[in-house]
Every structure is written in structure tokens, then in C-alpha cells.
């Protein structure tokens, strides 16, 4: 039977319930969200009162940041109700998710009602993080138990990629397989198959790891800011490090999970051995729980120093006072700053002699030992453990991958020297001469299967195109900033390899060359895409800045021309060019996107023409493209100016779309041409399919000579709009100067009447405007500020 899910019931409208409901709405589900009727509300009271809890939660979600919905209008896909009046409506739903209070008895009684109402075959799941899944199914019908399992989302559900799938012994394998795939392809999550063990995978490993760092912090006599710095980006983990993360999650939650593990997993010796430090208990006892109580390891005072920065105090672990923290000064931190490559950086920090190195080394070795012992207890294989930690805690590498960096054998020996026990299967693996948990082979990434004692392809990963896997064998061409891969079926993929995937001369020449190779050879088409966190942060500002500061106008003109020629080559290539994006798609990255035949956009793509922030206008064809798109939207009798103002504002305010869907609204994406994939790890695969689809009968577009521009009539309206922004203090003098340049290009210059112009004409005036801004002192100040501080300057 092919299962379809289009209507989902979410039972419970707390932060998680609402977040899950919103994400289901994001991906196109019709959602029914129920909660209890507020106490004291009459049976005959109007629906608005009886549904007040759910309504309130949805209203709060619309204001929450980061936004749980791709666009606010998707809230209309969520119907709010209550358990008393509307529970019978779950009979129409294809999937029922329980997200109510973490009390077994209450959950059981709700499931009893659900069992009576649901249609046979409907999937029922719980989002519990602490209650064993099988206990909730006790006493339920056979059909219920066959279709019941745990589906554990992480907060916030839209943004955190992990979805743990936890079947019981009774759960139908078909249901498990379906949700593993549905969670990945439709919900865009990293689905991880878990066993019904305490804390499942992510919390079990993650909280143990955190507790170990807390213990080591005391042992090594380190400060919380030292620990947060060294356990953050230097080792490929989020900026929140360890203590800041604890404040964010809530110290009470961590305490509860840790106590739960100690109680429910009594055989787990490493958990039993770890001792929560006294300073941690002090915080919990004094209700210093973190962000929710405004005070935890850190205390945001709400005051500002003389430079206007907010004053944040940190806990002195010895005196237990919150006090000003000193800037950490660890040799390992300095060392880490010099190393770009994560794996080399981690290794260097791991081997550092100072206490920063000791913390990373000792905590990593404990983690290695711990995960070795947890397989197969919590997971039959190693890769779910890595996937869970990467997707749930935003680590760049999972525990076994960190271990691979050190070497399996070396890591095991060092761990044993620390007194930890390494599980037998790892010992055996080493004895058999395997010194890596993962390896690349034939364009695929393989994991070590401890049962078969061999390397196997990760199931379900067949469709994710991992460019690393092609690196060794399938590179067709490369330079310092790009690699061109053969990803099969006659399709090439151009990967940016520059820092932050910024676009400099190497990328531009690389794109041109890649298109040339595609056109000249026996290739079907080209995908431009990469597996980086961000597709591209935009043009290499350093390069433009250098030429601008040295007033090399001819070189600058040539550089901008190269940019324009490159995007135009994407547009007018004789073979299809499709872009695949994720993360930041800024400036030149956005211009590249707009000029391809189609875009396959990860839902979490943040697309925007942000050039105004550095005192420039989009100069790689972006401003021209907005003029063209405005022109294409005009209809007979259209007054045109509102459309023009809308396009103008988007560029002049450097508006970034906060989701792929919003990028349609902002005019960066075109309905019908570009499409969104919820799971960004499938974007290159889908882009490749798009190339193959477009390739049959592909005809390159004809250069445009028919772009309607409004001339000075349009400019007047845009000037007026810009002037109001200045008076309202939303824009500075210089912003207005830039805005007027944008207006000039969008309107085709100060023509006295409306007329049709060519793309090349618009590109020429766009380039001229760009270069003229490079001669402005305030633009140079903005560029310099961005290069030095990585933040836009308002001047």
C-alpha cells in the first residue's frame, strides 16, 4: 500500500507542538492542532474561548524569532481546536502526533481516546523525550500498536534538522521505513533510527558529553568563557560552546535528563561515573536555570558599557559569583585561529599541551569510549550516532568522525590510557587492520558495519550527492576556487571551493570554463552547487576593495564586466545550467542563481541582494535582472509603478528572504521555474534531475531586447520613496545616494519616456553605477568596515 500523508493532527500546542504544527504547515500539510480547554470555560462558550490555548500559541508563533513558519500566510493551514470538542476530527488525519505534558498516565489516557477514534492504519506517534515508547502503547489495540512509534523532533522543529524515529517491538516495519523516508524527503529532516532506550541517541550522547566537559572544567581549573571558546567553532561546534548552550537548553532540563539516564540506564557505567559538579547543582538549587530565568552560567545584566555593548557576567566557578569575564587567552585558541581546515584544526587543538587542549583531548577520549560502548545498545550502526549529533546539536563532525580524525587505533589507545574501556567490536576492527569508521569509494561514502565487519553504503543516502565522494576520482577540471565534478548521467557539478564560497576571479573564470566544457563536450548540462553550509556569501569583497582603494578603475571595470559576462553565460549557455542552494545565497551568489535556467533551493536558503550594506549596488546583473523581471510582470493597462517600487525596495533595503518560500515573494525566485526542496542535502541530486529534464529539446534563450523601463517618470517615484526613508531616519545620506543609483538602473536612466531597452544596455549602466560608487569615500568606509569587522557599517 502506498501511504500518503496530507492531514496531520498535532495533540498539544506547547512550544514543541506549535513548532511541529508550523513545520508541517511549511511543507504543505493541513494541520489540526488541539489542546485542552482553559479551566473555567463554559461548555457553550464560543469557540474562540474554548480554543484560547491553541489560538494563543499560534499567535505567539507568528511573532516568534526565528520564525517557525516559512511565511506567515501558511498559518492558515493550521486549524486550532480542543480535545473536548474536536478530538473526533482526528479520524480524518493520516498521522497523529502527541506532544502533551510528559506524564505517562495522561499520555496513556489520551492514547486510549485516540485509539477509539482513529481510523485503522493511521500512524500515531509521540514526541516524548523521556518516556519509553513501548509503555505508552500498553493496553492499546493491535492496529494501534502496529502503527505507533516515537517521532522525536528537536526545538525549534523548523531549524533543527534531527528527527529521531523510535519504533517499538510491535511497530510495523513498513511504518518505520515510511517515516524514515517521509521525514527526510518531505519534512527535510535528518531522520535517525533509534532504539527505545533512555534519551534515545542525541540526548544520551550529547548530555553525557556535556556532563563530562562540566566535570573536566572543574578538574582542569578552567573558566566558563575559556571552555565556551575552545568547545565552540575551534572544534567544529556551535558558538554557544558548552555553558552558553546549557543556559539555552536550561540547567534544569540537563539535570533532569542526566538524573533520568542515571536512573533508567543503571548498567551505563560511564554515566554512573560522571559526577555533576557542585557548581552545577548550586545553579539548579538556586533556580539559576539559564535564559528562562535570566540567570544561569551567564547573567545578562541588561546594562550597557560605554561602547554600547551589553554587559554579560559569567559565573566564577570557585566563588559562585557572577562577575565580569576575562577574554580567554589560551595558546590552543590562538593556534586554532590559524587553521582553516576543521579536521587539521581539531587535531591541532587535541594535541595542544595547554589546558584547552587537555579539555578537548580528555572529553573527546571519553566520548570515543562512550559511543563505542553504546553501539549496538542504542543504535545498530555507527552512522546514526554521528547523524544525530550533527543534526541535533549542530556539530560539524559526529563522535566517530572526530575519532577518525585522530585515527581509530590511536584514539582507542589514548582512551585506554585515560582508563576508559573501548568496546570489543572496535578492538576487533583495529585487529583486522581497519583504521577508519568511514571511507569514500566510487563516489559513495561508506561506513564500517561492525556486524558484517566490512564497509557498506549508508542506506537511504544514495540520493544525497556528496561531492567529497567524487573528489578523488571524478574531477573534470579545477582551479584554486572551483572543482568541476562528473556526477553521472552526463551531468557536471561545479563546486565553489573558495573561502565561504565567495566569488572571486577564480570562481568566475571557473564558471565560464565549466560552461565551456559542458558545451564543447558530450555533456548534458551543468549543476552549480556545493555541500557547504552556505551556497555563497557573495562576491569576494577584498578583491573589489583593493581595486577601489587603489582607484584602479580600468581593472575594476574589467572585473565587474567579468562578473556580468559570467552570469550572462549562465543565462545563455547552449546547455542547461541549474543552481542548487542552501544557507546564505547573498549578493553575487543570488545573481548567479537568478541567471541560471532553474534553481533547486533548499528550504533553508537565505537569498538576498545585500550589496547596499557595503555601499554598492548589485553589479553582476542583479539590478538588471530586477528591471527585467519588473518588465516581465507588466500587463496591459498596468500602472507599473507599484511593482517598480516593490523591486526597488528589495534591493535598496538589502532585503534577505528568510526562507525559500519568501524568496518567491521577494522576487528572487520565479514560480514554475525554480523550486524548493525541504531537505537541502538532496538539492544537488534534484538539480541534476532538473538538468536532465530541461536537456531534452533544450534551446538557449534569445538575448532580451524588449525590457520596458520607465525612465524619469519611474525615477521620480523611486526618488520620492527614497527621500521618505531618509526623513524617517531609516536611511542615511549615503544610502540615498546608492538608492538613487539603483533607481537609475531600474528605470533605464533618465529617459523622458517609457521605452524598451536591451539587457546589455542595462548591464552597462549597472556597471557604470557600481564603479561610480566605488569612488565614494563612504562606500570605501563600508567595505573596509565589513572586511575588518564582518558587520555592515551605517554611515
Amino acid at each position: 500500500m502506498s501511504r500518503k500523508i496530507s492531514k496531520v493532527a498535532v495533540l498539544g500546542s506547547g512550544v514543541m507542538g506549535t513548532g511541529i504544527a508550523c513545520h508541517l504547515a511549511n511543507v504543505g500539510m493541513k494541520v489540526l492542532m488541539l489542546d485542552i480547554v482553559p479551566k473555567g470555560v463554559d461548555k457553550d462558550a464560543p469557540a474562540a474561548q474554548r480554543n484560547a490555548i491553541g489560538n494563543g500559541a499560534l499567535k505567539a508563533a507568528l511573532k516568534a524569532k526565528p520564525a517557525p513558519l516559512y511565511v506567515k500566510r501558511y498559518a492558515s493551514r493550521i486549524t486550532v481546536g480542543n480535545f473536548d470538542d474536536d478530538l473526533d476530527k482526528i479520524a480524518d488525519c493520516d498521522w497523529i502526533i502527541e506532544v502533551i505534558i510528559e506524564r505517562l498516565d495522561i499520555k496513556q489516557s489520551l492514547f486510549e481516546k485516540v485509539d477509539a477514534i482513529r481510523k485503522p492504519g493511521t500512524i500515531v506517534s509521540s514526541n516524548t523525550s523521556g518516556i519509553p515508547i513501548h509503555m505508552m502503547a500498553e493496553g492499546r489495540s493491535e492496529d494501534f500498536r502496529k502503527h505507533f512509534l516515537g517521532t522525536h523532533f528537536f526545538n525549534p522543529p523548523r531549524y533543527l534538522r534531527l528527527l529521531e524515529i523510535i519504533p517499538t517491538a510491535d511497530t510495523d516495519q513498513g511504518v518505520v521505513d515510511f517515516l524514515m523516508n517521509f521525514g527526510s524527503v518531505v519534512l527535510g529532516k535528518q531522520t535517525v533510527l533509534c532504539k527505545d532506550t533512555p534519551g534515545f541517541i542525541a540526548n544520551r550522547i550529547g548530555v553525557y558529553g556535556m556532563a563530562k566537559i562540566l566535570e573536566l572544567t572543574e578538574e582542569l581549573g578552567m573558566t566558563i568563557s575559556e571552555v565556551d571558546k575552545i568547545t565552540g567553532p575551534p572544534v567544529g561546534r556551535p558558538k554557544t560552546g558548552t555553558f552558553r548552550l546549557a543556559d539555552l537548553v536550561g540547567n534544569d532540563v540537563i539535570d533532569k535528563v542526566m538524573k533520568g539516564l542515571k536512573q533508567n540506564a543503571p548498567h551505563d557505567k560511564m554515566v554512573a561515573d560522571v559526577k555533576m559538579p557542585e557548581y552545577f547543582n548550586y545553579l539548579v538549587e538556586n533556580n539559576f536555570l539559564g535564559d528562562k530565568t535570566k540567570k544561569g552560567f551567564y547573567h545578562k545584566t541588561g546594562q550597557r558599557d560605554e561602547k554600547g555593548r551589553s554587559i554579560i557576567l559569567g559565573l566564577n566557578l570557585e566563588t559562585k559569583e557572577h562577575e565580569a569575564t576575562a577574554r580567554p587567552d589560551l595558546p590552543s585558541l590562538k593556534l586554532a585561529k590559524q587553521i582553516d581546515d576543521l579536521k587539521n584544526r581539531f587535531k591541532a587543538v587535541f594535541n595542544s599541551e595547554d589546558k584547552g587542549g587537555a579539555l578537548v583531548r580528555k572529553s573527546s577520549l571519553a566520548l570515543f569510549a562512550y559511543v563505542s560502548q553504546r553501539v549496538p545498545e542504542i543504535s545498530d550502526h555507527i552512522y546514526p550516532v554521528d547523524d544525530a549529533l550533527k543534526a541535533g546539536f549542530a556539530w560539524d563532525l559526529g563522535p566517530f568522525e572526530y575519532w577518525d580524525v585522530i585515527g581509530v587505533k590511536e584514539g582507542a589507545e589514548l582512551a585506554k590510557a585515560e582508563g576508559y574501556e573501548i568496546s570489543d567490536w572496535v578492538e576487533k576492527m583495529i585487529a583486522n587492520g581497519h583504521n577508519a569508521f568511514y571511507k569514500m569509494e566510487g563516489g559513495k561514502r561508506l561506513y564500517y558495519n561492525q556486524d558484517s565487519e566490512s564497509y557498506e553504503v549508508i542506506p537511504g543516502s544514495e540520493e544525497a550527492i556528496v561531492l567529497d565522494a567524487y573528489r578523488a576520482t571524478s574531477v573534470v577540471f579545477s582551479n584554486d576556487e572551483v572543482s568541476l565534478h562528473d556526477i553521472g548521467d552526463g551531468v557536471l557539478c561545479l563546486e565553489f571551493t573558495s573561502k565561504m564560497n565567495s566569488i572571486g576571479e577564480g570562481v568566475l573564470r571557473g564558471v565560464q570554463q565549466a560552461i565551456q566544457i559542458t558545451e564543447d563536450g558530450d555533456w548534458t548540462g551543468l549543476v552549480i552547487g556545493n555541500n557547504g553550509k552556505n551556497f555563497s556569501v557573495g562576491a569576494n569583497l577584498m578583491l573589489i576593495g583593493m581595486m577601489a582603494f587603489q582607484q584602479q578603475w580600468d581593472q575594476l571595470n574589467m572585473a565587474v564586466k567579468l562578473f556580468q559576462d559570467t552570469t550572462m553565460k549562465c543565462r545563455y549557455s547552449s546547455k542547461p545550467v541549474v543552481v542548487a542552494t542552501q544557507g546564505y545565497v547573498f549578493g553575487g551568489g543570488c545573481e548567479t542563481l537568478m541567471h541560471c535556467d532553474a534553481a533547486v533551493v533548499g528550504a533553508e536558503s537565505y537569498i538576498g541582494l545585500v550589496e547596499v550594506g557595503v555601499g554598492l549596488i548589485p553589479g553582476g546583473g542583479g539590478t538588471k535582472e530586477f528591471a527585467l523581471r519588473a518588465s516581465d510582470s507588466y500587463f496591459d493597462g498596468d500602472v507599473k509603478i507599484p511593482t517598480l517600487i516593490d523591486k526597488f525596495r528589495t534591493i535598496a533595503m538589502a532585503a534577505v528572504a528568510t526562507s525559500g518560500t519568501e524568496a518567491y515573494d521577494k522576487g528572487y525566485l520565479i514560480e514554475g521555474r525554480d523550486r524548493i526542496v525541504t531537505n537541502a542535502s538532496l538539492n544537488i541530486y534534484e538539480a541534476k534531475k532538473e538538468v536532465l529534464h530541461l536537456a531534452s529539446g533544450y534551446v538557449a534563450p534569445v538575448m532580451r531586447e524588449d525590457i520596458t523601463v520607465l525612465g524619469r517618470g519611474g525615477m521620480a517615484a523611486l526618488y520620492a520613496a527614497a527621500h521618505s526613508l531618509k526623513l524617517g531616519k531609516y536611511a542615511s545620506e549615503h544610502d540615498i545616494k546608492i538608492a538613487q543609483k539603483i533607481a537609475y538602473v531600474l528605470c533605464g536612466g533618465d529617459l523622458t519616456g517609457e521605452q524598451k531597452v536591451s539587457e546589455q544596455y542595462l548591464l552597462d549602466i549597472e556597471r557604470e553605477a557600481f564603479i561610480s560608487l566605488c569612488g565614494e569615500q563612504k562606500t570605501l568606509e563600508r567595505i573596509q568596515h565589513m572586511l575588518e569587522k564582518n558587520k555592515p557599517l551605517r554611515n
Partner: protein
Amino acid sequence: MYIVKAYRSAVGKAKKGSFKNYRSDDLAVKVIEYMMEQTPQVAPEMIDDVIVGCANPEGEQGLQMGRHISARALGKVVPGMTVNRYCASGLETISIAAGKIAAGMGDMYIAGGAESMSMIPMTGYKLAPSYETAVAQPNYLIGMGLTAEAVANKYEVSREDQDEFAYNSHQKAANALANGYFDKSIVPVDVTEVWVENGQRKEKTFTMKQDEGVRADTSKEVLGKLRAVFAQGGSVTAGNSSQTSDGAAFTLVASEKMVKELNLEPIARLVTCSVGGVDPLYMGIGPCAAIPKALSRAGLSLSDIDLIELNEAFASQALAVIRTAGLDPSKVNINGGAIALGHPLGCTGAKLTTQLIDDLERTGGKYGMVTACVGGGQGIAGIIEKL
């Protein structure tokens, strides 16, 4: 130049109020028909012209709305025109009627204004200024909120004073509603709404007869929490600005000859009406340019004026005008103003005239003044004598 009758619709909240789907031409027809019923001596064909004020005469208010209103309310033979002086339109039309009568060009006019801010955006559908203006005089093109900020800064009107003014406007308006001060001149209008709910066609009819904008329960604290909406770090908020509204108001203006011939009972006389220009950046101070002109034409001084309706486009400009022109605050807007009661642009002048005549009668006053600032940097002041 007598005002024989003056009626208005209740004022609806734009976009969410009772008139959100009620066209302003339809509303005008209702008010004029009602006025004619109250004046049986006047036959439709006696009306020389219908003069309709409207600030955004396009879209639903396009097609020369004045003519459509005259033909529908009074018959094909009665002509009609549309007049635009933005927020002064509804008073300007009365002034035009009076002027025509004084010049001997006619005897009887219906003059007033109608506006649906629910339907027509404030800047119209196509903002298309002159390139020369945009380049050389961009201040001529700015939104009204920014002029209110400019006035607040130049005339040093504090946020607290603006909020207090807004609070008092609501309090006074609530008092007026409670006492039914407006009821006499409000034309009840039956509104029928048809909509779809849960796939079902639904219909309801209700009578709209009370102004909708008043918030009796607002407080200075609530107003103080609102954010500035027009400028970063500014002081002009949604709470201390006028409300966008829908409404219609009309007067019957007649010559002395007609009054006598038909034995009409005039309620007031338009003594004079003046307009003046100011810097468009400080649009809100406009009344200060018009008030002295009107007083001088009328041969009166401020102390002769018993009551003043000063249109509250924004609290900042109303306060700046009161202070600069030296108006006695106790005479100004005794029933609150546009901040509480709404400001249906082109209708407002006639609506305030209607209210002022009623208030003069109720309080036993003789002279009253209607004054307003006008977009683009103008002011209007009309002096009314209660008969």
C-alpha cells in the same frame, strides 16, 4: 449663503469597520436622500449643483463621482462635480457653494464630501510625481506622518504631550457618545454584508449609526507604549495620529432669496472661508496661515469665536497649531477629534461643520471655526455663525 441643513453618516473604521465594504458614493447618496426628506419644500430640480469633496478621486471614487451621486440621489437633471483639496475638501465645497451664491451664479447647492479609506490607498494607486519635483523639491512629496514628525521636532511637541492630547480626545469623544451629542445629525445607514463562512453563503443587515473609532478604555500608559511608525526614534504613533475612516457628510446651502421663498429655516451661515500655504514639510502648521486671514475677512478676533473644530490629523500638529495660533484649548474640539472619531479625508470638512453647528446650538455659542491642515502644505479656516 445660509446652511439650511447638515447631516453626516457615522464614521466607520477603515478596513475593519462597518463601512469597509460600503462605497463612499453609495454613502453620499444615502445622506443626501435623507437630507432631502427632511426638507420637503426643496424639490430636487431646485438644486443648482452637487459639490462633492474627495481626497482620492480614483478607483471606486473615480469616474467623476460627484456626477454619479447627483444623478442617483436627485435625478439626471441635477449636475454634480468632484472637488479635491485633500483634507479640506468637505469644507471647500461649502465655501464654493457659498461663493457661487454670493456671486449670483446660483441659489441652492448641496455641498460636502465623501471618502472610503477602506477602498482607496492614501497615495492612490499610482504614485507618479514630477521628476523635476522629485529632484529639486523632494519635501513636497513626503508622507503625512513624516510632516507630523517634522512639526513635532520644529515646534518641540513632546511625545508625552501628544499622547496626553490623544488620550483627552478619546475621553471627550466617549463623553459625547455617551450623551448622544452626535445622534441628531447622523443618518442611520442599513448595511448588508454577504460573505462565505465554512463554505456557506451568509448574510446580515445591521444599522450603522455611531462613530466607531472611540476607545473609552485607552490610557496614557497604553498610548505611551506604542512605537513610532513613521520615523526611527520618532514620536508620532498610531495612537496619537488620526484614524483612517469611511464616511460622508453634506450640507444644503441656499441663498437668502431661496430661504425666504421656500420658508426655510437656516441653521447657520458661512461667514467666510480662507486658505493659506505653508512649507509642505511642516504641512500640519497650515491652519496658522489660514486662521488670521479668515478672522480678518470676517472682521472678528479669536476671542469672538466660541468653539473651534481643529482637525486632529496628528496630535503633534494640533498642539503646534493651538500653541502658535494662540487658540484657547478649552474651546477646541470639545467632543474630541479625528484621533478618536476618525478622519475620512474628503468628508472631514463637512463632518466637522455639521458637528460644530450642533455644538454651537447646544452650548449657546454664536461663532465657530472649522480649521484643518491640508496635505501639500496648506491650511483652511471657515467661520460659521449659528443662527
